[in-house]
């Protein structure tokens, strides 16, 4: 049997899921100009919020995903206001260090509440489909569809809504945007809320296939960063494209590498892009 079509299908699915948190990470970079490493813990918080809604309240996957988005968005916004926004004037790197400290604090709050045990979502078990020798689970297809719907929503909002246009304006030229009467603080808050919401939803989507624990988000940061850097840090379509490259690359790496090194593929991708095309595939323009 042929392995490559199966790996390609798996790669496209995991790339689409990865794109959601990668878009969040890169959007914060585009508007606020610093790498916010607290995405690791907010992906975990989203995954746990979705778990609480799914297992605790008995909600199906889609409403649970909305819960993951809302909780991660609100926690992300609150923690940014308290911990990171006051430090941003000191420079991007200071804010980056503080965001690592923040991610440790948030991750351990999850650990304090839920413990270190592995937890699984309560989803109906369905038999995998076989299409021309390729196995896909209906759950995977649903996740893929959800990821694509979310992405379409993000791109439509950026392109057509006033708020999306304001975000792009601030990302392009904050000074000019302010002259035009756009309040950068408000746009920053909105970006953090939506971006962290996406990170949280992405954390849940990535966790749906396996089980989750307080380190869930941390395990995905390497591919998330890789997706953002490969596509061009700060470029939203770039993050989506980069996530596809990383997702497919991770799966194809299974042909030559042991599965344990799957997440190292992200690092290799970062190194290759920085060595040969430092601005990423699509450059650093936000949209």
């Amino acid at each position: 049997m042929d392995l490559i079509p199966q790996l390609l299908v798996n790669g496209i699915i995991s790339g689409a899921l990865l794109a959601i948190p990668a878009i969040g990470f890169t959007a914060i970079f585009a508007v606020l100009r610093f790498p916010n490493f607290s995405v690791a813990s907010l992906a975990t918080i989203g995954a746990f919020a979705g778990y609480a809604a799914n297992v605790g309240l008995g909600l199906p996957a889609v409403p649970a995903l909305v819960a993951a988005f809302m909780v991660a968005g609100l926690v992300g916004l609150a923690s940014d206001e308290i911990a990171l926004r006051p430090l941003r004037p000191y420079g991007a790197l200071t804010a980056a260090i503080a965001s690592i400290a923040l991610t440790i604090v948030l991750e351990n709050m999850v650990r304090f509440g839920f413990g270190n045990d592995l937890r699984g979502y309560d989803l109906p078990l369905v038999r995998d489909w076989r299409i021309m020798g390729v196995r896909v689970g209906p759950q995977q297809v649903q996740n893929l569809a959800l990821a694509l719907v979310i992405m379409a929503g993000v791109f439509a909002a950026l392109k057509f809504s006033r708020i999306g246009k304001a975000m792009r304006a601030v990302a392009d030229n904050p000074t000019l945007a302010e002259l035009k009467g756009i309040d950068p603080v408000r746009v920053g808050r909105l970006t953090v809320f939506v971006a962290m919401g996406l990170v949280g939803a992405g954390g849940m989507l990535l966790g749906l296939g396996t089980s989750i624990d307080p380190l869930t988000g941390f395990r995905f940061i390497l591919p998330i960063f890789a997706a953002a850097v490969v596509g061009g840090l700060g470029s939203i379509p770039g993050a989506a494209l980069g996530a596809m490259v990383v997702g497919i690359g991770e799966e194809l790496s299974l042909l030559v590498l042991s599965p344990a090194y799957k997440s190292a593929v992200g690092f290799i991708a970062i190194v290759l892009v920085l060595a040969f095309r430092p601005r990423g595939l699509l450059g650093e323009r936000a949209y």
Partner: protein
Amino acid sequence: MLSYLLATLTFAGVYALLALGLNVIWGMAGMINLGLAGFFALGAYASALATVALGLPIIVGIVIAIAFAAAAGALLSRLTLNLRGDYLAIVTLGFSEVIRLIAANEIWLTNGSDGIPGIPGPLRGTLTPLEFNALSCALLFAAVGLAWWMTERLRRAPFGRALRAIRDDETAAAVAGKPVRRYKVQAFAIGAGLLGLAGAAYAHFTSYVAPDIFRPLLTIYIFLALTAGGTGNTSGAVIGAFFVILILEGSRFIEPLFHGLSGAQGAALREIIIGSSLILIMRIRPQGLLAERPPKSLRTQ
């Protein structure tokens, strides 16, 4: 109790070496390194393998550890030299993750998650455990003293002045004719070498290394040490390291006072305190306990 105290002081020495290394990279040159755990692990494993697998003397192992960590530092900083510091942040964080993956999975080399036991320490076996702890403590303090003296000299030297100029305004330093790129790579390599030295010291003192020991949390501990002590201040780095050990060890004694906390909850609470204190200190006193003071020029001394 004395043995525990000596062991704790030895760990404080390891942290002080890490803080001194980070001080060269972040404090003096203003370059970020979020992969401290990776350089620390690289040094620990390099020295452990050189002494256990190859049977080399400890001192050779330590030199190899420093060389490996410095080379890795030079490579990573070289790779992101033309880009904003954000990229170095991402690359160092990723590097640390890859080192952990290699340590956990290349069983033929690192023995996987079982780790490498039986790493030789100076005179271990011929001394009683208490005497060994006393000797390690003394050696570690000597190493910290040496590293303090060397980095303080570096700070006062023209090289250190140039690094501060680069940190504060890279373009201006370049216009003034400073070899910005070369100096940045050199500073990162020197700092990374000290991180590797700390790893080697840790391995020989505890006699055991495993992938779990090198968690990313270490990066936060050391940033807290440096920020609390005073970023850019050599003595501040050492004092900050002792401060962090005081919080870490002190919380062990406070923990039993809170009844009904599980082990995981106690550990989680400790990390919450560490992370929050770093953010708080950055807010309230960003210059730290001992603020950086520019060295007096040689003529007025």
